[in-house]
């Protein structure tokens, strides 16, 4: 069995440290937001997890194309890993958003375009795993998975625009402004610093988890192969 590479071991430790540092910045260093108070601190992690999950989903669509062109199962393993990690991160995004929304919007959930698109996107990738579960042949599983992930990736932006037909209350904090948004706030320098550090930390954590998950996928495949050899 192949040894875990040293770089990955180091990355594991670095990820944990970065996560702790990001938490420290968000909780102790960043100033308290005037109107919303401490609950606003959830925002750093909310944006951090959303950022990496969305990058993961975009990368996934690209991996679909690469797999369909090359038909090399390696890309399928990377895609599964990327979707799995992204789905978990996106779930965390939604839960953290909900925690923030309760005091800010006075509700856990609202059918705002971003929230709804997030929910639909999450459902698309859960459907992706259900599709894969129903197929035994690994090549077919990979092909169907790639096709569905691509179709899902194409539909997500259109879904966002379609839900936009209804008004939004989600704040746009980083760029632009929306007069109808509730709970928006302007960021101070310290807040920005904490935010960018969180983005950086989550990117590293994401890469670390992705790498570990890909290795796990490889090991799973080796087990499959050995099992087949044993029964042949």
């Amino acid at each position, binding site marked *: 069995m192949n040894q875990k590479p040293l770089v990955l071991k180091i990355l594991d430790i670095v990820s944990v440290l970065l996560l702790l540092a990001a938490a420290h910045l968000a909780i102790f260093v960043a100033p308290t937001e005037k109107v919303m108070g401490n609950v606003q601190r959830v925002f750093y992690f909310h944006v951090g997890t959303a950022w990496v999950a969305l990058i993961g989903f975009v990368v996934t669509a690209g991996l679909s194309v690469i797999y369909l062109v090359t038909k090399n199962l390696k890309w399928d393993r990377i895609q599964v890993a990327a979707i799995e990690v992204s789905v978990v991160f996106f779930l965390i995004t939604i839960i953290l958003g909900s925690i923030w929304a309760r005091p800010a919007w006075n509700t856990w959930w609202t059918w705002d375009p971003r929230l709804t698109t997030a929910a639909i996107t999450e459902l698309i990738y859960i459907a992706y795993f259900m599709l894969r579960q129903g197929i035994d*042949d*690994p*090549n077919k599983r990979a092909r169907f998975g790639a096709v569905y992930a691509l179709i899902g990736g194409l539909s997500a932006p259109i879904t966002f625009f379609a839900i936009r037909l209804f008004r939004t209350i989600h704040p746009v904090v980083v760029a632009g402004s929306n007069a109808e948004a509730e709970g928006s706030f302007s960021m101070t320098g310290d807040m920005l610093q904490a935010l960018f550090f969180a983005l950086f930390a989550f990117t590293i954590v994401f890469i670390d988890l992705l790498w570990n998950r890909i290795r796990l996928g490889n090991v799973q*495949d080796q087990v499959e192969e050995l099992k*087949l050899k044993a029964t042949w």
Partner: protein
Amino acid sequence: MITVTKLVKRFGYKTILRGVDFEVQPGEFVALLGPNGAGKTTFLRILASLARPSLGEVKVAGYKLPSEAAQVRARLGVVSHLPLLYGDLTAEENLRFYAQMYGLTNYRSRITEVLEMIGLETRRRDLVRTFSRGMQQRLAIGRAVLHDPQIMLFDEPYTGLDQDASTMLDDVLKTVAAQGRTVVMTSHDLARAEALATRFDILSRGVIAASAARKQLKKSNLLAFYKQALAG
């Protein structure tokens, strides 16, 4: 007519065909024998361009698979143990549909000709749903010879047929072969194969284990030959 070199087919990590070399001369009737799970159907599906080879070269009627699949398909007739017919259409409508799919013009007289050959002329306006298994299988052969293919592939055509139906199918198969066509038929029924084929190839553990022309075999020796090939 058919040249296969070092053909490998994998489903994920399961290798079904591991280096098949196979050649068929024009006009030969080859019976491909072997136990269940030996890869006969998979092999035939590759020849029929329904599955892609993982490795190796496949040439049918002088065209390469899978790159020149359309040319191969135009020269190929396939009969499987499924009828490939629509129950809610009549015999004639089924044939007309496939004639259009193959781009035939003036198919009216051809359809009558084929229906006479398979002995279903009187039932041409009946729904296929009402046909017996044997009649459906004969119509399936009619469907496969409609575009006058040079090569015919039969995948276990006797599955589920009773004695009478099998005898009638024998006659149709002989007629089809007598018209100078090249035929490859898979079967696990040695007696049937012996009655029809001019050559016997045995597929075992993913390779052609043995091959013998009818002349080389004394009658009644096929069983011994088959057993020896499987053991060795």
